[in-house]
């Protein structure tokens, strides 16, 4: 390990604004999660559709922050961004097809 110390390392000082942005992203994620808890206990189960739509929307917003900011995808080149995002259309299709099938099964039962 002795020779490792000979390499000159230039430690760049931290960029306060950048780090603050990361903590802000975390704070947004936490606030959304707390909001979801509020909906889970504040909105009665009778409004099932409303609850489900709020949960799904909030999940997609959280996913956007995680993938965009934490995984840095929003700041990568556009080719990389679309190479990852476009194939997820298959997931949308899978969801549509399976829910359609599920409704058909419950009709038969």
């Amino acid at each position, binding site marked *: 390990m002795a020779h490792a110390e000979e390499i000159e390392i230039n430690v*760049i000082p931290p960029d306060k604004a950048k780090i603050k942005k990361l903590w802000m992203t975390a704070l947004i994620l936490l606030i959304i999660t707390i909001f979801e808890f509020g909906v889970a206990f504040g909105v009665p189960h009778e409004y099932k559709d409303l609850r489900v739509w709020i949960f799904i929307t909030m999940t997609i917003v959280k996913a956007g922050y995680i*993938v965009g900011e934490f995984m840095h995808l929003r700041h990568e080149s556009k*080719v990389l961004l679309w190479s990852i995002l476009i194939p997820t259309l298959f997931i949308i299709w899978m*969801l549509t097809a*399976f829910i359609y099938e599920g409704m058909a099964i419950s009709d038969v039962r």
Partner: protein
Amino acid sequence: MSSTSAATASGRSAWDGGVSPMGASYGKLMMWFFLLSDAFTFSALLITYGLVRSSHGVYTGLVENFTFSPTYWPIPEKVFEAIPFFHGLEAPLVFVGIMTFILIMSSVTMVLAVEAGHRMDRAAVEKWMLWTIVGGAAFLGCQAWEWSHFIHGNGLPDGGANLVHNQYGPPDFADFFFFITGFHGFHVFSGVCFNFLIYYNTVTGVYQRRGHYEMIEKVGLYWHFVDLVWVFVFTFFYLV
């Protein structure tokens, strides 16, 4: 595409090699594509959960009068309402909330480690990686407790759940619980192993000698993905 046009501007074709058309290294790109395929696997599990759930009966009575029955799908918050050291206390979803908090926090410490790596700040990378490992281990511990509680149930002879019998509702519910949270937990476990590996390499100065901390970035992508999956599991398994 900017790197491609830059290469052509200097008189070289983009096909001559030496450029990254997507502005990302080979390893990072492959991590992205692996995560995409992993996203398909998790989607398959969660969407199948949706299909099986929607083909089962729905509880129609009042939420206050809810009781477990194999004839309809349980309300998740009635199943997951226990927390360690507070036996008998009804605290719906509180423990899952704590687990979510732990995972989000460990995602932040991971992204701070990546940021420190960009600045070649070895000490900071070590610090944040260690916190990330602690967070991951804490999450696994919580999950072990939750599994144990779910399996043993109320302690009665026919209580608890396994792959064929389920105190809380249809056996399918327990099967999906074990498969979805189990598959996710296994990802967390391998993530903690990878995190430890890169922490070890940072401490021994491997990345400093290499001149960059890209490994932190690649494993970081994986770790954030694990967090991302949990966001979906949390919504579709515990909230909806």
